[in-house]
């Protein structure tokens, strides 16, 4: 293990260097660009054996990834925002072809208006594409998640693509202390990829991506659902194995000072770091507050999350993206739906925050805890979504 100072982008590039994938196909987009620039240096200096394909669009990036994965190679890529949106069609196809591609999504607000800063509208919009989604709080987790993602994606019970997200600029461009595994440790953890089928096996020709009508399509989708369900135990097993190796355990989520908490915030991404600080301050003031950091958004750990929220008097769910016209952002919808019928009679409120990179400060999070404290007293949640730190 060694300790280095890395930005989020550099941390992921380090993980990719250690994974040393057979193929990377990518297209530059802010704020992902530095990640691929860094990795391209590894390629040009012969530090990795990867064949890097610098395609002419993100749609072609994901298409090339699907082809390369179908050919039995280990494949990685990275993108942000509009790049992810341009891949949309291919995200679904990559998942349905059961391609274990690992992609970093450096979260950025989806146009329009055009904006280069962080929110989660890009990856949250892709939440139904059939990818496993891992969120990262900081550079360390971006590194750790990337290594684990390769194992999760390629697990024979799963065989699905994995998206590792990190907040654009807030994580991607911020230098932090990161613990890096020794190369040999990382390589041993990731292991070799043994695909079940390969297009390059001319002795056993297979047809991939055939036309699939009403008589079989549904069964194939059901199998895809099962792969995602299987990921539940695989994510946990690999999180434990990685914990034994690195000293950092990973699960669906991390609960912070939740033991005797009455009030809590559910959040993901870099805002968790801010919320953690607020929890410490409020605890010092004698408030019984906690924090639930969601790491795995797909598959959504609905049963486990309810058990942690049971016993609270009120909680807030933080969403860094909108779902226009729905009651709450994507995280809220999932969490609140998970609570239905589970005997949780308590106020649950949704805060949409940080769109387009709007800062979310200690004061903002403090206000959230203050408001849910009032909701706990009244026993009532507001009838609508709350927007944090916006001029209305």
């Amino acid at each position, binding site marked *: 293990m060694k300790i280095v100072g890395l930005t989020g982008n550099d941390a992921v590039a380090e993980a990719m260097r250690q994974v040393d994938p*057979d*193929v990377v*196909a990518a297209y530059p987009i802010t704020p992902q660009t530095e990640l691929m620039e860094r990795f391209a240096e590894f390629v040009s200096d012969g530090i990795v*054996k*990867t*064949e890097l*394909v*610098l*395609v*002419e*669009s993100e*749609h*072609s*990036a994901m*298409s*090339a*990834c*699907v*082809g*390369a*994965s*179908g*050919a*039995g*190679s280990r*494949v990685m890529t990275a993108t942000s925002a509009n790049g992810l949106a341009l891949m949309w*069609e*291919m995200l679904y*196809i990559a998942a349905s*072809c059961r391609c274990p591609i690992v992609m970093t999504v450096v979260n950025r607000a989806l146009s329009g208006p055009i904006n280069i800063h962080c929110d989660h509208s890009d990856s949250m919009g892709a939440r139904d594409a059939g990818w496993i989604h891992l969120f990262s709080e900081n550079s360390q987790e971006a590194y750790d998640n990337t290594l684990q993602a390769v194992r999760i994606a390629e697990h024979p019970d799963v065989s699905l693509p994995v998206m590792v997200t990190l907040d654009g600029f807030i994580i991607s461009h911020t230098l932090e202390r990161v613990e890096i595994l020794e190369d040999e440790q990382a390589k041993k953890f990731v292991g070799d990829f043994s695909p079940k089928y*390969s*297009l*390059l*096996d*001319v002795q056993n*020709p*297979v*047809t*991939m*991506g*055939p*036309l*699939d*009508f009403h008589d*079989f399509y549904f069964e194939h989708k059901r199998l895809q659902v099962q792969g995602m369900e299987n990921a539940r135990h695989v994510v946990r097993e690999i999180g434990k194995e990685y914990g034994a190796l690195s000293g950092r355990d990973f699960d669906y989520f991390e609960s912070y000072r939740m033991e005797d908490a009455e009030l809590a915030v559910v959040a993901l991404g870099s805002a968790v770091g801010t919320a953690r600080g607020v929890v410490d301050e409020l605890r010092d003031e004698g408030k019984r507050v906690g924090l639930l950091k969601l790491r795995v958004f797909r598959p959504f750990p609905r049963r486990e999350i309810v058990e942690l929220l049971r016993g609270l008097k009120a909680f807030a769910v933080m969403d860094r993206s909108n779902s226009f016209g729905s009651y709450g952002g994507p995280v809220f919808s999932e969490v609140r739906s998970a609570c239905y019928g589970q005997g949780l009679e308590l106020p649950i409120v949704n805060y949409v925050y940080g769109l387009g990179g709007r800062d979310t400060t200690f004061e903002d999070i403090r206000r959230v805890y203050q408001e849910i404290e009032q909701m706990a007293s009244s026993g009532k949640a507001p009838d609508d979504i709350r927007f944090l730190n916006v001029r209305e």
Partner: protein
Amino acid sequence: MATLKDLASREDLLTGGHRACAGCGMTSIVRQILLVAGKNVVVGCATGCLEVTTTIFPYSAWRVPFIHSAFENVAATVSGIETAYRSLRKQGKIQEDMRFIAFGGDGGTYDIGIQALSGALERGHKMLYVCYDNEAYMNTGNQRSGATPFSAHTSTCPVGSVIKGKQQFNKDLTSIVAAHGVPYVAQANGAFWKDLTTKVEKALSVDGPSFLNVLSPCVLGWKYPTDETVEISKLAVDTCFWPLYEVDEGVYRITHVPPKKKPLGEWTKPQGRFRHFHQPGGEALLARAQAEVDRRWEKLLSISEKPRKPGQ
């Protein structure tokens, strides 16, 4: 160069039993290409007639590895396969010498797929891209494409009482591809088997991207009898609507000069999509189409190596 006897003795790598229409030009073109390519080949296919008729799950007509992923991206998909091959071969994980062929229709090539095609050509992947050009979106019922000829009837540019079919000329895709400066580009036609198979051999032997634009008559869209596909194909060449030529390392060479250049009307007359050319009032449209064919043919002659004797 393979002889007909030799080709006929090889295993067909696209089996019968697929669902292509009777008289379809596409499948005979693909079979000829695969006879030359052999078994150490991976095929990628854009969404379209070829994919839809040959891979209805749980059946597949392909005896070689095959992938379809989407409509506009076969060049990108196959570039990924070819890259994986180079990576694994470099690492000693694969030993075979392999070839990669992408098939796309004119919709998937001239129109929605041209960006992915251009990118793959520029990147220099060692792959053959074959456009089977049936001159409209035939898989979905004959909608206009960038390859649809002037004034042809399609379901989205019908011949009406005011507007007579497509108002523009077809895009010269072969020239666009040639402008990328890739090692080998050619136009071919399924009715000229020797010309086609020779071009496939050349295309698969170059160290870099190659491209074949193959005219692929469509019985339903072009509206002609199912047993006239070969004849219609030949007339496209003999009228110089579809010249057979190659661009070999930048040198243009006409590979078949019609013994006598026939009037365009001989090709359009048997086709229902050009029926209005041959009805009262259609002469001017046919004349305009003829003028463009003449212009393109003269231009091709002017930039090509001196043609061999007519008929060769």
